[in-house]
């Protein structure tokens, strides 16, 4: 099977700091992959490199788009989104002062076209497009469980709802690969369970999911494969249970000696 995303010998330096060193792994289409590692391991940097916000120092990121493969390392973030990679952020980044529905509509931006003249003249094309944007935005809201809340201001929503809105906005870009950066952070157990259910439903719609997560219940509950990085280096990869019992992983999280004690 051709992997949807291939990360090949990826390096990223910030000045003298090597944030990522020789990271290599593949993401298969239709999987839910967990990316874990202690704080500062380079998980978010890896996300930023894939999303185009950071330019990798060396290495290749190869995306399978349709039946072509193309290298997206160093591409601009808006281009990467257009190619079907969407993301959420560790510290939620919504358009705080806009309504919930406008947040999702903005997610439709890269799949729509009208600009100035369409907006002023309200051409047939623009009207049809605007109607489609609105309809699909409401569908995405309903999909993440925020039905009927479109007119609220994003900033005024509860934390867990903001997380789900961010996912709805990412889904609105029609991604093939969805990258979630700590989606369960700050959620209570019930919200985490709902989130896991949502992630599975996203995958069932044919979208591959890559998530960074610290909440091991979520990682173990939803991920089919886990990649561990530590100090910017690939450490382990495999089924969740195997990774959980891997002495090297336990050592990375708890320090030398902990592996023996466990």
């Amino acid at each position: 099977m051709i992997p949807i995303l291939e990360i090949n010998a990826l390096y990223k330096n910030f000045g003298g700091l090597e944030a990522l060193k020789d990271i290599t792994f593949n993401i298969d289409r239709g999987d839910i992959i967990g990316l874990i590692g202690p704080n500062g391991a380079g998980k978010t940097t890896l996300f930023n490199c894939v999303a185009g916000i950071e330019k990798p120092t060396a290495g290749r990121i190869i995306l399978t788009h349709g039946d072509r493969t193309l290298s997206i390392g160093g591409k601009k973030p808006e281009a990467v989104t257009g190619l079907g990679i969407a993301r959420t952020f560790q510290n939620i980044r919504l358009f705080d002062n806009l309504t919930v529905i406008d947040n999702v509509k903005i997610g439709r931006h890269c799949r729509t076209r009208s600009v100035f003249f369409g907006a002023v003249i309200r051409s047939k094309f623009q009207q049809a497009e605007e109607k489609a944007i609105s309809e699909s935005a409401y569908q995405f809201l309903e999909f993440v469980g925020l039905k009927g809340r479109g007119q609220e201001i994003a900033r005024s929503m509860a934390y867990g709802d903001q997380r789900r809105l961010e996912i709805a906005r990412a889904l609105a870009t029609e991604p093939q690969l969805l990258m979630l950066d700590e989606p369960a952070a700050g959620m209570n157990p019930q919200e985490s369970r709902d989130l896991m259910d949502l992630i599975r439903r996203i995958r069932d719609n044919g979208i591959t999911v890559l998530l960074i997560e610290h909440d091991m219940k979520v990682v173990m509950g939803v991920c089919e494969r886990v990649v561990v990085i530590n100090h910017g280096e690939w450490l382990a990869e495999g089924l969740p249970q195997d990774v959980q019992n891997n002495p090297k992983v336990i050592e990375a999280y708890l320090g030398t000696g902990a592996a023996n004690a466990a």
Partner: protein
Amino acid sequence: MGKLEPRNLTRGAKLRIGLLILALILPFLPFVTDYQLHIVILIFLYMILALGLNIVPGFNGLLDLGYVGFYGIGAYTSGLLTYHFGLSYWVIIPLAFMNGAIWGILLGAPTLRLTGDYFAIVTFGFSELVVLFLTNEIWLTRGPLGLPGIDVVSIDLTLFGGPKWEFIGELPYYYLAIVMVLITVFVMYRIQDSRLGRAWFAIRDDEVAAVSCGINLLAYKVIAFAISAAFGAVGGSFFARWMTFLSPDMFKFWESFLILCMIVLGGMGNIWGVMIGAVILVSMSEILRELLPLLGLPADVRFLAFGLIMVLMMRFRPAGMLPIAAVAAQMRAGRTKRRKTKPAMGIKK
């Protein structure tokens, strides 16, 4: 055609229709003099300018100090085309619009990569450049002598065997200005409620999130800058044909500042607020111009009064008289602590 259903009008719609009717009959009220009409036209002109400028700081969150440069470009485009080629004003409007947009793109494309204050400084430099150009390129603009004797606006139907009306006095300009304000407001509302407007609001709220939604920051900022400049130029083109005289010192930096004050005073990003800001500042400027000499002060002291108003606004109502949520939130964040710190590395391009 849809049926008119006057019973279903909301209070806001009634207010709007009332104001429009008032504006339409104003010249025929017994106590209105030509001078007062002149001031109202000036208010309308500044409404167009303020609405145009509002796109950049209000919709996109970028500080633009060089707006008057585009106003000047529009005015001289109109003035020179009339002076040398005798073009009709109806042809000049689209030409001025396009010329403004072209200069907006020429200035915006290389400089909109800059962020915040750096961008503001570049725009400030641009407006100074325009004044210097207009002053020194005497072969084109006659420099400090100014450009006198620009034709008035006329409706020429002689081509079709009809009559030719020349716009003499304030009255025809008054109605022309109303039409232009209405068109500007219409365009602003349409933009505000479209994919383009949403992209701008996204940029204003959070640039990193905006790119991750697939918005090309540079392209959309340049579009904003071009449209803003185009409206500035259209305002300038009207000014040229209305005043029938132009000189470079009409486009000095303080004009930019005055228009920016209107936006801040009325409420950045709010179409109604911006118009109210224009009404207040233009009328106050005229009142003070009359009042100050009576108190034995030079008329220029009115700029001190504007400064004082801005200080008081910043202290008591920083988001303007009719604030929108986004600006109010930014002002709150600025006062206490930035709630959402944007990463220093941001987006490199």
